[in-house]
């Protein structure tokens, strides 16, 4: 029986148990699910060509064997098989291939196969998110078959495009604009059309990347700010919406403030995904009058976690993948010395307060095993009195330090920055890059560079020139960076030229060079202080 039918029959308790029941699990029960599904996956994965190519003759029988025998993997380990879509070598039969950019990879894109069983799990978890986004307490939620959702994310072949398809298998929620129309539209077109439809028909849900949701929300305000609704369009408006628009405009005029989406819509649920969401959540809440619920999804891990009505920490779904956690200490050590093999801990071994890099093994015939997604989380608690859960709760911290992710939009790697610098042809001798936040809490990439002493006579190298040159080349090598400017209207680069010899001085003092990617704030502070001496 589909969700629609259950909703029709008002079997709310059953719905809640089916989709959100994982919140009631004890950690032992949670681990039982993890272990059983992992056993199934070990079988499938070890017996396929992909698995054998990584196992190199070893045959794991238990989960412990598996963790010992399978090294931690990155996309590089799968690239040959996955990029050529060699389905016969995979543990499960892919129904669809999902695509994303491969930051600093040898190929512009990454492909990830999804089996039908993975999609089933994905669908159920997406529904769980939808339900939880509307709930204010356990077992209470408000969704219906006729709801409408504004969807500020990319269509297939990107992972976000799965969301509407999976959802519509179970419930008739209407996407604004309809998926089949949306695929042929550009991002801004999609938002414009979606919002226009929302103005006419009302809106119950909104889902987008935090940063994009924010950009869209602002454009909504400016779009609705324009007074003109043409007579021709007037027909398409629901009278109640017309009334609401009129009222909202009047109110805004009275309060002398721009129109906000919350004046027009009473959202039931608001979901955001991606990185840097914390910088946008407050603003989004102010704009929409409801605090967004964060969920965690990606191309390789599919949808793996969600917040609840407390909006205070995420829970990982027990049936998406097997989770292992690399403690921060080991992660950093491994970054410095790639030959160091970091330890991993399981869900029942995490410690509150500790920061971890996540490692996943997909269930249900997924390709990735012990895969480093490149995200870090902090465990914020093992139990929660607020929502009465007994499983660990996490908050998203950021990408791993060797990748700088700006607003969930682009991922910049050391290779990327290096090739931008060499393409620019500027006499940069040393550099280090880190993500910082401006006064409005918006993220940007801060590049600290040092120029070759002798070149200063022959080159014009102000920070301004460097910034515009580097921006040009970032846009050249990175499509997402281009979109950052185009879609979010943000300029995410800041360049600081350090005094000649500073990096060298640092090396003399500390005995090693400062890390190129995301050095710690203390290291950076020390570097900057060395300029003075």
């Amino acid at each position, binding site marked *: 029986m589909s969700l629609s039918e259950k909703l029709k029959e008002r079997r709310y308790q059953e719905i809640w148990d089916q989709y959100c029941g994982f919140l009631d699990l004890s950690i032992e029960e949670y681990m039982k699910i993890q272990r059983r599904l992992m056993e199934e996956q070990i079988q499938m994965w070890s017996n396929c060509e992909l698995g054998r190519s990584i196992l190199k003759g070893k045959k794991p029988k238990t989960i412990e064997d598996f963790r010992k025998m399978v090294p931690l993997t990155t996309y590089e380990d799968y690239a040959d098989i996955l*990029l*050529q879509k060699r389905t016969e070598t995979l543990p499960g039969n892919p*129904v669809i291939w999902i695509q994303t950019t491969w930051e600093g990879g040898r190929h512009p*894109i990454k492909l990830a196969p999804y089996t*039908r069983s993975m999609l089933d799990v994905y669908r159920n978890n997406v529904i769980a998110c939808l339900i939880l986004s509307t709930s204010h307490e356990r077992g209470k939620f408000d969704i219906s078959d006729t709801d409408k959702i504004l969807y500020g994310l990319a269509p297939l072949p990107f992972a976000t495009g799965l969301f509407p*398809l*999976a959802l519509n298998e179970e419930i008739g929620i209407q996407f604004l604009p309809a998926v089949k129309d949306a695929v042929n539209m550009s991002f801004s077109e999609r938002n414009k059309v979606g919002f226009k439809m929302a103005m006419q028909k009302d809106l119950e849900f909104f889902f987008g990347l935090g940063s994009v949701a924010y950009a869209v929300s602002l454009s909504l305000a400016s779009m609705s700010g324009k007074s003109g609704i043409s007579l021709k369009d007037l*027909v*398409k408006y629901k009278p109640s919406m017309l009334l609401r628009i009129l009222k909202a405009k009047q109110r805004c005029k009275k309060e002398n403030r721009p129109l906000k989406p919350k004046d027009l819509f009473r959202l039931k649920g608001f979901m955001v995904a991606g990185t840097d969401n914390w910088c946008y959540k407050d603003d989004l809440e102010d704009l929409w009058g409801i605090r967004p619920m964060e969920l965690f999804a990606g191309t390789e891990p599919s949808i793996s976690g969600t917040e609840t009505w407390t909006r205070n920490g995420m829970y990982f779904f027990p049936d998406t993948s097997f989770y292992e956690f690399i403690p921060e200490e080991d992660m950093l050590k491994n970054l410095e010395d790639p030959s160091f093999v970091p330890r991993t801990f399981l869900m029942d071994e995490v410690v509150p307060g500790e920061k971890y890099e996540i490692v996943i093994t997909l269930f249900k015939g997924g390709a990735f095993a012990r895969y480093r997604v490149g995200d870090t989380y902090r465990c914020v608690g093992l139990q929660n009195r607020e929502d009465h859960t007994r499983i660990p709760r996490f908050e998203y911290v950021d990408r791993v330090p060797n990748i700088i992710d700006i607003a969930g939009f682009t991922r910049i790697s050391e290779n990327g920055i290096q090739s931008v610098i060499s393409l620019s042809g500027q006499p940069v001798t040393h550099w280090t890059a880190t993500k910082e936040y401006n006064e409005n809490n918006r993220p940007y990439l801060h590049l600290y560079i040092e120029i070759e002493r002798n070149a200063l006579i022959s080159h014009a190298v102000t920070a301004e020139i460097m910034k515009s040159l580097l921006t040009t080349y970032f846009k050249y090598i990175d499509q997402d960076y281009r979109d950052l400017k185009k879609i979010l209207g943000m300029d995410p680069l800041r360049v600081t030229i350090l005094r000649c010899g500073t990096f060298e001085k640092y090396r003399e003092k500390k005995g090693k060079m400062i890390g190129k990617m995301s050095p710690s704030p203390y290291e950076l502070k020390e570097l900057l202080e060395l300029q003075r001496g």
Partner: protein
Amino acid sequence: MQSYGYISIIALFFYCFIFLTFLAAKKEKIVKHFLVLVATMICWTAGSVFMRLQMFPSYIVWYHVSLGGLLMMPYAYFLFVNAFGGREDRFFNRMYGLLLMGLFLINIPKGIFVRWPDLVMRGDEVSFEYRYTWMVAILFGAAAVVLVHCFANMVRICRKDPWYKRQFHPIILGIVCLFAGNLALLVPVFHGFPIDLVTGIVNALLLIYALLRKRLFQLKLLASESSCYGMGLILTFLLYYNLLPDITKQLSSRFPAAEEYTILVFAVLFLVTFWLLVSLWRKIVSNLFVKEEEQQTEKIRKYNNQVARSLHLDEILAETVDIIHETVESANIYICIQDRSGGDYQARYSNQPLNDLSFTIRRDNPLVRILEKCEGILMREFRSMIDYKAMWETEKRNLQDLHIEACISLRDEGNIVGIILLSNPPGNRKLSRGDMDMVLTIASSASIAIKNAHLYETAYYEARTDELTKLLNRKYFFEVLNEEFEKNQEGSLALAIINIDDFKLYNQLYGTQAGDKALRRIAEIIRSSVGDSGYAARYSGKEFAVLLPRYDVFSARNLVKSIQKQIFQMTDTTVDYKLKVLTVSVGISAAPYAAKTPEELLENADMAVNHVKRTGKNGIEIFDTILRENSVRDDVKDHKNIYKEYESTIYALTAAIDVKDHYTFSHSNDVAYYATGLARELNLNPDVVEIIRQAALLHDVGKIGIPEAILNKEGKLTEEEYEVIKGHVEASIGIIRHLPSLDYVIPAVIGHHERYDGKGYPRRIAGENIPLSARILCIADSFDAMTTKRSYKDVIPMEHALEILEEEAGKQFDPSLVPVFVRGVREGRIKMASEAAGKR
């Protein structure tokens, strides 16, 4: 007045008839709006009649009723047309309603726009005198606006879907008549004659005609048969009640003699009318209230039109799945299409975009056999048939997992070209025979459309695709090149030509099959790397072209570098030994930087490739050499001398053979001599000659492991012993594979006991699939075995041995190599090994 009375009563009667008919229908939006339309007509006519009859309460009231009906009629048409065309004009729907109703209400108290007529009595004759002012224009102007808008909507609807055009014809005609009638009132000829009501009747007839042709809309019947008799009775009664005085009067005046039979005549007339009415009603009901299947027939007709127009397979499949979903309501629908070679049925399309389409129904599946006989079958019937017993468990489970409940074949003259699989509709409904029939109807038209589209797509695909690599072919590539060059005049366009180094050698070493496989792998790498950002084509036998719109030299080089690296790292995991590494020479040229025409672009890339070839292969050259790239070169040693380096290893191994079995040692040396002799006769590349020599020296290295007793046994070997001997080939490979640097000899060694006719061992491959080096070795090996003395046999003279070779050409030996070898020996260029060794 007489004619007026008849006409208005008849018109009223028709309207009531339609109204009552539709009251019995399920109240869908379209039906409701149609009822509103008929209601306005009734108001108009009834008001007019009752006004003339000055019925209670007063003629003015009836005048308003009539005017209201007339005013609201355009609005009702507007509603109805919108509902019929599926348009959502929520705003105008309400606005026009309010506007016209408002005007009407304002007019009531004082008749601002059009005042009620004055009643003029001229003797018995009653007439009405109207007085119009310009204000009337406001009232009818508003109605006209609505009507014009209604027409505009109709045009829009028809333009969107021409199917509606025919459906609207009678309605439009009706409206035209109606308003022509109203206008005609102003023409003096019609003075006193109710031409408006006559045209009203015409309009009603047209509506009924539209209904009778069952084109207008389809309804679900709610009323029963008996209600149809009841209604006929009521209507007839009403009709005769009204007409009674007139008819009696007419009868008595025209046929005074018949006066006493009035009641009888009347009763007969009543009965006849009743009978006519009931049969008309029945006809309408059976035509109009079509059963669901007939509703579906209409949909299918539309579907047929649509698929007949398309040649795109996916479009047709999508339409087919949609129509099945609409008519049968199956939750999951799959269409499997037979692959191009007429083999198995591969799932190709489903109504749910995320459904698994990776399954295949084998051609020999019992289900297919059943479908050959009966076109379509329900799974629950199939399960009880004898053929079901032949289903594999996996096949059964597969269908169960997909919840398949019915299978329908798509046919092309008796051949099954595809299969439609259906699951049950959601809820508790199960697929019925009726559903099956419906899908069969769809399948029959789908079959033709699918066949045509399939043919078209195959032709389209074949004309543009290289058969082996599935990349674009050369011819189509030139087309694309010219197109893209034109398109990217303002931007940039990069072209890379990727040429495989020493591919001939590769083919000779491992056979053409392995060569083709390598080509396919390389094509796959190129395709996956280029993706959507450009075009990949097979430019010539061992050359690929990559066209990259909007790429400059820098990005093109990066992409090509990645391709080059992947090809270099390519390994064939289906064979248990490592194949020679393939490298590529790449030339890149880009417009506008270095070319102004497509021809120049191509020429430049070609020149760049040639340059790499001349300067040591395995590199990337950019035309107009600003950048020179030889990145991967460090990874491979200069292949020119590569094979000489392993001499010492080979010596060590042959020495080991010598210790164990001197015969094998000298035999190996002899075979090496004959094999290189043959290779030279064939003018093979010196590298290949060297590889063949080394392979010959090592070809029997596996015999180290065979007991001497068997090796030197006099007389015939037992079967078991023969098996042991046969095992030496694998044993040889077992030894050589541990020397990764020597694995290039493996194909020759592993294949030297294969026979040209495929009856050899260990792999039983035949013909050109046996690597050339192995075929050479086979001749050399056999020739030496025949011409030397063994413990179990005598020497066969050279000439006889050559004859045996010739006899066996095409059976054991490659028929194209034997004559070359025989000629070489006979003409003295290849001497007997013993002789040659003496000289050496």
